């Protein structure tokens, strides 16, 4: 059997294995192991399996994941999200769609300490939806916006997605973080515009909340400042080169712990719970990466990435059209298996082609992040929608209807990135030369 044929058969078997309900990371490792056995030898395959696992577990670069995930978990357990939402509520709650706008602002703030899309949606599903229901908000809007704000997690640093992408493609995590800021904020701004427009057109959908006094507003500001300070500390430390991403994760987690302890919001019980949750998520993520590393060794032996790159580059099409098709593959692939898992699996295959086509790797990261943002809110596998449905018990069809208007923002930011790559590349080019 030739390498390429073995690779194609291997990928087909992998998709079949996914359908059996096996853990995706384990499936990738199993196919990689069998593939190396077929193409090289059983002895080499056992060796690759053990060494790849050890290298992923003991790599300093990967220790960043448990740290950033723990930072978000502690922020959640300590109620930081609740207070950020509360602060935004006091400032904008009285305008049309104000509570939904407060959800976007609170989530964008919370995102600066929490790296996960699903965790952000889960947090705001329990915080913002009950509050919006209290004021009589339509469930389409309340659940739709909460499912959509989770997607900001892919762009606004410290994004776990961007760290994974950075490690897979050996790009600077600091540059990726900076590149995500402007697109992330523009997306949040689009969300706000859509909510405002929607609420103006149908005021019954989002009744106004009472106006807060300036005294109440001022009282809520310190919380926002603290979170802003932690964000600047983490991103600034990486950007200036004073911290490695792992150190930034450690310092950020420590700062969130200090903030929570000072405010008497963190008990030992809550800390232990956060540790357990963070370990579960980090373990899942690292097993995906370890599995894809083993699979990557098999794919490398087959020569598929090089052949795919040559074939893609040789296509008689405009390079932007090719990039559009690559995004479509990520979208379709991510719709049937987990988006992050598909990104981990597909990036090593497409990345050489993207480089050969002359695209900037940082820009490619942003485009893929936006593609995956769309994937986490559209069927069949829409993790953010599932999380909101699970917590709010609102029918899934209602949530999908609510998500539709916000999808426009995500598609629009994708188009803007294609037309104006500087939206992503300007900040890193100015701040990290």
């Amino acid at each position, binding site marked *: 059997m030739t390498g390429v044929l073995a690779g194609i058969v291997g990928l087909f078997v992998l998709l079949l*294995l*996914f*359908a*059996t*309900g*096996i*853990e*995706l*990371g*384990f499936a990738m*490792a*199993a196919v990689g*192991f069998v593939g190396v056995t077929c193409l090289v030898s059983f002895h080499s395959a*056992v*060796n690759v*399996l*053990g*060494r790849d*696992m*050890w290298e*992923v*577990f*003991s*790599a*300093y670069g*990967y*220790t960043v994941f*448990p*740290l950033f995930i*723990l930072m978000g978990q502690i922020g959640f357990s300590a109620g930081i999200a609740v207070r950020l939402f509360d602060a935004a509520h006091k400032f904008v709650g009285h305008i049309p769609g104000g509570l939904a706008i407060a959800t976007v602002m609170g989530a964008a703030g919370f995102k600066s300490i929490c790296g996960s899309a699903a965790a952000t949606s889960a947090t705001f599903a329990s915080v913002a939806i009950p509050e919006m229901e209290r004021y009589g908000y339509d469930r389409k809007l309340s659940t739709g916006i909460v499912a959509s704000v989770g997607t900001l997690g892919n762009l606004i640093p410290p994004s776990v997605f961007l760290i994974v992408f950075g490690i897979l493609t050996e790009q600077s995590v600091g540059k990726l973080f900076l590149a995500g800021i402007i697109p992330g904020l523009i997306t949040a701004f689009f969300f706000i515009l859509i909510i405002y427009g929607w609420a103006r057109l149908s005021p019954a959908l989002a009744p106004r909340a009472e106006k807060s006094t300036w005294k109440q507003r001022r009282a809520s500001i310190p919380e926002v400042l603290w979170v802003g300070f932690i964000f600047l500390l983490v991103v600034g430390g990486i950007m200036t080169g*004073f*911290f490695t991403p*792992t*150190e930034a*994760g*450690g*310092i950020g*987690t*420590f700062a969130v*712990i200090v903030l929570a302890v000072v405010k008497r919001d963190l008990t030992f019980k809550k800390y*232990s719970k956060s*540790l*357990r949750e*963070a*370990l*579960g*998520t*980090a*373990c*899942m993520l*690292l*097993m*995906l990466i370890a599995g894809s590393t083993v699979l990557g060794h098999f794919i490398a032996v087959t020569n598929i990435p090089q052949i795919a790159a040559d074939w893609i580059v040789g296509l008689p099409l405009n390079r932007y059209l090719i990039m559009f098709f690559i995004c479509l593959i990520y979208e379709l692939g991510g719709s*049937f*298996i*987990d988006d*992050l*898992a598909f990104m981990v699996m597909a990036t090593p295959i497409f990345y050489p082609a993207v480089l050969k086509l002359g695209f900037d790797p940082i820009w490619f990261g942003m485009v893929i992040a936006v593609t995956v943002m769309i994937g986490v809110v559209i069927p*069949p*596998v829409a993790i953010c929608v599932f999380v909101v449905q699970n917590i709010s018990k609102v029918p899934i069809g209602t949530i999908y209807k609510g998500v539709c208007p916000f999808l426009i923002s995500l598609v629009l930011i994708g188009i803007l990135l294609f037309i104006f790559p500087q939206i992503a590349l300007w900040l890193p080019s100015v701040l990290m030369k």
Partner: protein
Amino acid sequence: MEKLLDTVLRISKILNGIAAAALTLMIATTVVDVFLRAVGRPVVGAYEIVGLICGPLVIGFAVPLSSWNKNHVSMDVLLAKLARGNRDVLNVTTRIICILLFGFIGYNLFSVGNEFRTAGEVSQTLHIPFYWVTYGVGVCCFIECIVFICDIIKIWREEQ
């Protein structure tokens, strides 16, 4: 049977506790290192403590409880549509694949650990031997196999 399940769960929780302690040590080491580096006295070997010792402990030791709690991403959309009997057959098959996989990983981690031990491999700055961490993660892989056996027992018990 109940006793076996309880024992495996308890062991998985203990290992997870070790992983949690390692994660806390990781935070403490990085924070102390950054602060002391600011005054020109970094923690010697912080990089090794975090990467070589804490990293494998954090992830490797959390694997059994993560699998017990079904934290790993899987695609169960199609599985849910199957009849109970077929679903159980498929689940048992995938558990067997996982047992074989982690059996091989555990076996090879012991080989890697043996290599580190016989070659006298130590970390570059602190000169800490780290073969014991490799053995530890290897043991966790074998416990992971037992977790999958427990999954099969649970499926079999539900069938009864």
